[in-house]
C-alpha cells in the first residue's frame, strides 16, 4: 500500500470507530466500511464481495439498551485490510471473513473499555457544567468521540505497517481444509444474525408472514426488491383490515397508512 492509501485507510478506520458508537451514518457497517477501504486501496471488487458477505453475517448485530453487539467496525476494517494485503483477490474473501469474527469479539472488548473511560469524561462535563462552561462540555464530547475513533484507527494503522509478506505468508500457510471449512462455516453463520432478529420480532401474529417469505423466496425470479414490495403490500393490507375490523366498533381514524398520516400532519 502507498503512503496515501495508508493514511486514507486509517481515516476510514477512524470514521468506522466513531460510527461504531454513534450508530447514525452507518460507516461501520461492513457494506460501507469494506467498500471505502476497497476504494482507497484500489481493490474495490474483492472488498465489495467481502463487505456483502460480512454484512449478511452482521445483519442482526445491534446495540440494544446497554448491551453491546459484536463489533462490526473492527471486523470489517481489519478483515478488509487483510484481504487487500493478502493480494488473493476474491479468493481471499473466505479467509478474511473467518478472521473477521474473532476480531468482532476483540472490538467488543475495546468498545467496552472506551465506554468505561467515558465515565471519567462525563465527570469532566459535570465539572464544566458547574461553572456554566459550554465549550468545556463540547470539547469533552469531542474527546470521547475521538477515543472511539482511535479504538479502530490504531489497530488499523498497526495492520497497515505490518509487511505484506507476513500477512501473505500467514494466509498461505493455512491449509486448504481449514480455509474451505471456514468458508462453509461462514455460509451457516448468517443464520445466527437472522435468529437474533427473529427472536426480537416474532409474535404468533407475524409468524405466518415469515412462512410466506420463506416460500416466496424459492421463486428465483423474484428479486429482493420484488419481495420487499410484496412485504410492504401485505403489511399495508393487514393493517387496513385490522383497522376496519376495529372501526366497525367505533369511529375510523386515519387513512390506514400510519406513515402517510404522520407525513400529512407535517406538510
Amino acid at each position, binding site marked *: 500500500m502507498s503512503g496515501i492509501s495508508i493514511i486514507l485507510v486509517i481515516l476510514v478506520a477512524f470514521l468506522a470507530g466513531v460510527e461504531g*458508537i*454513534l*450508530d*447514525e*451514518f*452507518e460507516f461501520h457497517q461492513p*457494506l*460501507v466500511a469494506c*467498500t471505502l477501504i476497497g476504494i482507497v486501496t484500489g481493490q474495490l471488487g474483492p472488498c*465489495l464481495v467481502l463487505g*456483502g458477505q460480512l*454484512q*449478511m453475517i452482521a445483519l*442482526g448485530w*445491534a446495540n440494544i*439498551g446497554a448491551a453491546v453487539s*459484536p463489533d462490526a467496525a473492527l471486523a470489517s476494517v481489519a478483515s478488509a485490510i487483510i484481504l487487500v494485503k493478502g493480494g488473493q483477490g476474491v479468493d481471499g474473501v473466505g479467509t478474511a471473513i473467518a478472521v473477521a*469474527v474473532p476480531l*468482532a469479539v476483540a472490538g467488543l472488548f475495546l468498545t467496552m473499555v472506551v465506554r*468505561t473511560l467515558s465515565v471519567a*469524561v*462525563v465527570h469532566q*462535563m*459535570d465539572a464544566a*457544567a*458547574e461553572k*456554566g462552561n459550554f465549550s468545556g*462540555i*463540547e470539547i469533552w464530547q*469531542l474527546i470521547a*468521540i475521538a477515543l*472511539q475513533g482511535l479504538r479502530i484507527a490504531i489497530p488499523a494503522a498497526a495492520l497497515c505497517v505490518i509487511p505484506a509478506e507476513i500477512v501473505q505468508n500467514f494466509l498461505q500457510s493455512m491449509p486448504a*481444509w481449514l480455509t474451505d*471449512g471456514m468458508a*462453509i*462455516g*461462514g455460509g*451457516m*453463520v*448468517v*443464520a*445466527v444474525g*437472522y*435468529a437474533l*432478529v427473529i427472536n426480537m*420480532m416474532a409474535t404468533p*401474529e*407475524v409468524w405466518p*408472514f415469515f412462512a410466506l*417469505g*420463506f416460500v*416466496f*423466496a424459492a421463486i428465483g425470479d423474484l428479486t*429482493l426488491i420484488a419481495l420487499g414490495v410484496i412485504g410492504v403490500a*401485505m*403489511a399495508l393490507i393487514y*393493517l387496513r383490515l385490522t*383497522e376496519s375490523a376495529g372501526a366497525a366498533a367505533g369511529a375510523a381514524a386515519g387513512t390506514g397508512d400510519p*406513515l402517510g398520516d*404522520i407525513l400529512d400532519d407535517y406538510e
Partner: protein
Amino acid sequence: MAENAKKVELSVSDRRSVWLRSTFLQGSWNYERMQNGGWCYAMIPAIKKLYTTKDEQSAALKRHLEFFNTQPFVASPILGVTLALEEDRANGAPVEDQAIQGVKVGMMGPLAGVGDPVFWFTLRPILAALGASLALSQNLLGPVLFFVLWNVARMAFMWYTQEFGYRVGTAITKDLSGGLLGKVTKGASILGMFILGALVMRWVSINFVIKVSEVQRSAGAYIDWANLPEGYEGLHQAFSQFAGGLSLEPTVVTTLQDNLNSLIPGLVPLLLTLGCMRLLKKNVSPIVIILALFIIGILGHIIGLL
C-alpha cells in the same frame, strides 16, 4: 430575569442546530449515565439562547447531564418535547426540574421499544441485505444505495419527529398511547418477518456433499468416451449424443442435499435458524454460536459431510 419584557423563542435555526448535534448523541456513551453527555451537548444551542445568567445556564447544563438512554433516533421527539418545556420554563412557566426529567425518562423506554424493532431489526437489515446482495456481484450500487437510503430516511425521521415533539410538547405522550406508533411497529415487524423468511431461504447456505447413492447407468444411457472416434468427429458425436439426452457420467450420484432439496428447498437452513433461535433464548452468546458453527464447518468438511 427579563423574561416578562420579551418572550424568548427557539428559532428554526436553533432547532436545526440541536438536530445536527443530536447526531453525536451516543458519542460519550458511558456505563454510568449512558447518553447523558451527548444529550447535554445537543441541548447546548437551546440553553445558550434561553438562559442568560451563568447560574441559570449552569443549572440547565446539570439538569441535562442526568441519566438518559434510548434508541438514538427516537431521542429526537424527546428532544423536541424537552425544547418546548425548556422554552416555557425560560418564559416563566412553572416547569419543575422533575417534570423535565420525568418526560425524558417516561418517553425513552416506550420509544426505544418502537425504535429498536423499526430501525435495527427492520429498516437496517432490509436495506443492508438489499445492498449486500448487489455488492456480492461486485456492484458498487449496493453500498451506495444502502448508505443514501438509510441516511435520508434517518435524517428526515430525526428532523420531523423533533419538530413534531416541539410543536405538541407534552401532548406527544398521549399520542403514543393512541396507537399510531404501535401500528408502525406492527407493520414493520410484518415486513421484517416476511423478508427474514426470504433471507433464510436465500442466504443461509449448507450443502451436504455426502453421497447417498452411486448407481451404475445402463449401457447406452451415457456417452461411451472410450469408444469415440478420434479428433473433431469424436467431439461431434459426443455433443450430438449429449444433446440426444445421454449422460456425461456412467454413474448417477445422489447427495444428501439432492434428497433434502426434493423434499423442501431450504429446509436445512430453516432448521439451523430455528436451532440458533433456541440457543439464543437459552442465553447462549451469539459469538459462541458463531464460533461453534465455524468449527462444525471445518470438522464437517474434514469428514466429508459438508
